[in-house]
């Protein structure tokens, strides 16, 4: 068994393998993971909207030992990651880290937001730092406005960053 604690280091090896195959292969994998994650989050979003997102990421915060803040108002849901255990483990690794490790988060979340009619603005800030800010808007125009202040905007399969 590769312990669940070490999944991110296995994930990192998968990313490096897939990058060698090509960008399309990576995108197909992100979509497959996204489909897997639908089992955990899709119904919550469809039935409870931002509150469903809050519930999902509250579990992730606790089970994955994340240091993060969560909140939402009428317009947007916001997650501020202060210390990401996933990137931290990928970096604390005897194997080489995939330099675009952070891309996987928007890679699976973006397609789910597209599917549920929300608009994701994912600021990774710096791929070497375990911090990021994710905002999810109801209104597309507000999402586009929020992109202006982003430091490192992530794309996902079907949507390249502007």
């Amino acid at each position: 068994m590769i312990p669940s604690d070490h999944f991110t280091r296995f994930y990192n090896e998968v990313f490096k393998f897939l990058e060698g195959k090509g960008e399309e292969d990576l995108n197909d994998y992100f979509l497959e993971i996204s489909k897997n994650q639908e089992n955990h989050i899709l119904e919550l979003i469809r039935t409870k909207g931002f509150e469903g997102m809050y519930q999902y990421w509250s579990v992730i915060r606790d089970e994955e030992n994340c240091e993060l803040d969560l909140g939402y108002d009428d317009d947007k849901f916001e997650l501020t990651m202060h210390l990401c255990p996933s990137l931290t483990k990928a970096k604390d690794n005897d194997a080489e880290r995939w330099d675009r490790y952070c891309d996987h988060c928007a890679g699976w979340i973006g397609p789910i937001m597209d599917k549920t009619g929300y608009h994701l603005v994912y600021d990774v800030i710096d791929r070497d730092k375990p911090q990021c800010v994710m905002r999810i808007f109801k209104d597309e125009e507000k999402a586009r406005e929020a992109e202006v202040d982003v430091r490192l905007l992530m794309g996902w399969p079907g949507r390249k960053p502007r």
Partner: protein
Amino acid sequence: MNATPDAPLRYNEDGNVHMDFHGAANTTIEFLVERYGIAALHEIFRRVGTDVYQDMRGKLMAGDSQEVVKHWQHFFTREGADFNIEIGADEIVLTVRHCTAWHHVQQIHGAVSAQFCDQTTVVNQALAEGTPFAIDTIIDGPGSCRQIIRSRG
């Protein structure tokens, strides 16, 4: 088989456990096998054994199998598995009667990939590759196995 009981593991995680990662691992295994075949999946597991667990493999190379035992003890306990480890004169046997990883995937996905336990078999082989030890994995049934460390000499 040297002992370093007090030294921390190279990856000494604590805190809560996110068992759904095993579901993502199962999805990943199925994706890789379907797209690239079993050999590609095994190559990735081999890299986990040789590169991610470089430190533990280094200890095996130096004749120390206790790090693997500590790793088993720590992570199977964290995941709530039903297991025990018997340390004999000629071999060390980890017996997993209820693998919580396998059963969690069965519970959330309804089915477990036929290659799910290859992660154990291949990582063990890669860990032991080029060391004075062999680590064999015997799958005894759904979610149960034995992992055996023996000196090659």
